[in-house]
Structures are given as structure tokens and as C-alpha cells.
């Protein structure tokens, strides 16, 4: 069983960081995993994204043409990746910055006001952590205890004091009241 995820947003939204947490969490869950970012000039043009491939077997290819699950933190990312989602796939959207539209009928949508929740919590930069919480509701492997460990692995030593703030922001996303399906 192989599945791929793309997380995308503006530069500065912490997309690559959140992607690394997802990849580490799946690794901790015993899966084979790869993480591949957009790089160089592509990143200077607006959206940043990275792709995570998770497999029980050896990962078949690192950068695929279609995707099982997209986590979109801004409208540009929603517009860019909506057509790449496989039939029956899913998009998890930051409804603070994305209009709640459903242009395709063959995929699942999850909308949650991630940036608003993060601002309420005290820092808009934590919207990426809220998104991980929202994702965790539908990806059972990514439970809070595994995400906690993964965040700890990805946070550099100099930022370790922010560990609990990040974890609390993830918990906000797990709170089902924030989600509209």
C-alpha cells in the first residue's frame, strides 16, 4: 500500500517544516517514506510545496504525477493541486485563506480555518501545526503521540522551547469543532 501527500502554501507558512513532521511521523510508524521539496527558483515564485510518499514496501517513485492527499494552506495551492488529486482522494484546506468551493465531486474536502485558529491561539505562523491536527483526524497513523515525537525530531535544538506551543497548536486542529466536511 502506497500513498502520497502534498502540503503546499506561501513561503513562510512553514510548509516544508510541516512536511518534514509528516514524513518523520510515518517513519516512526514503521513506514518507508520519502520527502521531496520544490526547490530553487520555483520557491521564489509564490507557492512552496513538498511531497511525501509513504509505503509499506519500498517507495516506488519519489515525485508522482498525481496525489492521494493535498494539504492546501492558501488559495494558490488549492487552485494548483486540485486537478492532480486522484479520484477518491482528499484535500484538506485552510478555509481562512481558501474559498469554500467544491469544484470536483469525486474527491473529499475538509475545510478548517487554520490561520484564524492560529491567530486566536496567539501566532498566525502556527497554521501549519493546526493543519497537522486537522489531518490527524482523518489519518489515523498520525495520532497526537506520534506527531509529538515527530515535532521533537524536526525542531532544531535552538527552537526546542517552542515544542509545547507547536503541540498545543496541533491539538487545536484535532478539535473536531474547527472542521467542516
Amino acid at each position, binding site marked *: 500500500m502506497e500513498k502520497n501527500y502534498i502540503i503546499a502554501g506561501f513561503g513562510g507558512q512553514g510548509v516544508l517544516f510541516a512536511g*518534514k513532521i509528516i514524513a518523520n511521523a510515518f517513519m516512526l510508524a514503521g513506514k518507508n517514506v*520519502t520527502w521531496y521539496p520544490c526547490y530553487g527558483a520555483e520557491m521564489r515564485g509564490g507557492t512552496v510545496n513538498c511531497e511525501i510518499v509513504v509505503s509499506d514496501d*519500498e517507495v516506488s517513485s*519519489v*515525485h508522482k504525477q498525481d496525489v492521494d492527499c493535498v494539504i492546501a494552506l492558501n488559495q494558490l495551492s488549492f487552485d494548483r493541486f486540485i486537478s492532480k488529486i486522484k479520484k477518491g482522494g482528499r484535500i484538506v484546506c485552510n478555509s481562512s485563506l481558501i474559498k469554500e468551493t467544491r469544484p470536483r465531486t469525486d474527491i473529499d474536502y475538509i475545510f478548517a480555518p487554520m490561520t484564524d485558529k492560529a491567530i486566536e491561539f496567539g501566532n498566525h505562523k502556527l497554521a501549519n501545526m493546526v493543519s497537522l491536527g486537522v489531518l490527524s483526524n482523518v489519518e489515523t497513523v498520525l495520532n497526537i503521540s506520534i506527531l509529538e515525537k515527530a515535532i521533537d525530531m524536526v525542531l532544531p535544538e535552538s527552537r526546542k522551547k517552542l515544542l509545547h506551543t507547536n503541540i498545543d497548536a496541533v491539538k487545536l486542529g484535532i478539535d473536531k469543532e474547527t472542521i467542516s466536511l
Partner: protein
Amino acid sequence: MESYSDKQLIKGNYAIAEAAVKAGCECYFGYPITPQTEIGEYLSQRMYDLKRGYVCAESELAAINMVIGAVSTGAKAMTSSSSCAVALMQEGLSYACADELPVVLVNVMRAGPGLGYIYPAQGDYYQAVYGGGNGDYKITVLAPSTVQECIDLTYRAFYLAQKWRNPTMILADGLLGQMMEPASYGEYPYPEIDNSSWALTGAKNREGRAIYSCARDEDKQNEHIRHLFRKYELIAKEDTDWEEFNTEDADIILIAFGSMTRNIKAAMKVLRAQGLKVGAFRPITLSPFPTNRLNQLADNVDRFITVEMNMGQMVNDVKLAVNGKAEVDLINRPVGQWLSVEEIVEGVKQIISKGVQYASI
């Protein structure tokens, strides 16, 4: 499934850089270029902390010549770059071969020709294997396919460079350099090679010595080149390396190098599930190329299909190895998005059904 207890997610470029440190690299010289800049970035701090040598050179030509200078004193040294900038180092490689110096060079390939832009590609197969320098020479070329191999083959590159006193290249690509994957460093697994018989360490208590790239005598120059080529034959005999999967009963063998390897293995599984007897073959050393093994396999295989992110370069070495005993075809795309498993499966079916020799996607 392997246990991840000792593994961490590591980016390919950082894997190469830290493996170089663990292999005992004492000096790094380089000039930044996407998609390998993280190697120099990482080493700028790491080498400083370890009190080893680090120079952000003024140009690639300077960098390769700094490596030549450092290794001629017996130090382990490395440079890294990408495609169009590795082109600038070709003169240095020719000299290092003639001088028999253990230069280690990393090429994290991007698109070409010319400036070519930063997309991943595999267009430097010829540049690496056949070279752009002058004269008769061969470097050793290792092509990693995973982040773990970025570590393992960096270790091996330092070892082989020392063992044979020959420049050794790690040929990776932008995809591999930029991606992260669980991997572990372990320890540098090779013995240290004694270089006291040739390294320029100062002539205290011994005769002076020098390293020359040429002999000013026709006979000696002939003999020097023959000596180099006897050495290349020994490298081929002792250190040619490859991997093969399901080749025992295969009618068709898919061949790829570097990070395309995982895609052909996955395509092989899909095609096997559909009842086609497909195997996979992957040279680990591109130079020396596993010519003899492919020639053996060709006795029982109908068709070899190489899958490359270029316009068809390794395919010609496969043709030379197979030497007419089987069909040799190509599935390729010049740059960018790696050929997907579905595209490879589709390409193989097209080739089988039409008997075409070219499925450019």
C-alpha cells in the same frame, strides 16, 4: 521491513556532506550551484567546527585545482558541483588522472545543455563516463540511487579514489540531492590506504619527489598511458559493481542508473503481476561499466530496455555490452519530472507490441 530505530530522515546533499566528513575528508573546496548548494553550506560550518579546511572558491576551475593541490599532499579532499559547472572542471579531471591523484568530485545533476536550469536530469552520463577533458583517461563513477547510498557510495568513493589513485565521481541528481529519506551513517567501513610512497609531504629525511602529468619522452609517455590503462583494467576487474533483480527467468530486463532505479523496480513488479517475465538491472559503477555481466545476461534475454532522464546515453553502453545478442530499447525524457512507474509500464508495452526501438515520453 527494516527497523528505523537507528535511522533519521536525511537530505541527500547533507548525507553526502556528512559521509565525506566521516570518510575523513580534510579539505572541501567548492562554489555554490543549485541543486547541490547544501553540501557546501553544511560543510562550511562542519569543517570549521572540526578545524578542517574549507574554501568557498572563486570559481569551479579554482575549486578542482585546489582539490588537486590538497590531495597531492596526501590529504583527503573533495569538491562538489552540478552539471554546467562540472563542465568547467573537466580539465582538472584529465590532469588528476594523468597525475594519478585521488580527487573526489560530486556531481548533483541538473538539466542541460548549457545553463540548462535547475530541474533534475541525468544528462551528464557521457560527461561523467567519457569525460570532457583531453587525452586517454578514465575516472571512476559511482551512481547512488537512495539517500542511504549517498552515504555508502561517498564512503566508497573516498576509498576507491585512494585505493587506485584515480579521480572518483559520485554522480547524483537534483531529485536525490533534494529529497529526504530514512538513512544512517554507521562508520566509514574501509581501511585507510598508505600513501607514504607518493604523497608530497616535504622531503625531510628522504629524497625529494614530484608529481608530473606527463613524461618528456615519447616512450615514457607511452608507458605512462599504458600503465594508466592497466590500472583501469584492474579497477574494472575488482570494483565493477551492479545490482540485479529477477533476472534469472527474465525475457525483458529494464536498466536504469541512479535515482531512476526505484522506478524501474516498481515497474518490474507491476509488469510481473501482469504475467510478463521482467527483470531489472542497475549499474552501481557507471565507470567501470558492468559490461561482462550484461553480455552474459544477453544470452538468455530477448530485450533490454534502458530508462533514462536524458536523450539516451547509457543505452549506448548497454548496446556495446549486449553486442547484438538481444534487442536494446530506450524509454526516456530529457529533463524534469522523473518517468513515472505508469509511464515506464506503458512504454514497455508499447515497445513489445510495436517492436519500436524508441518510446520517447
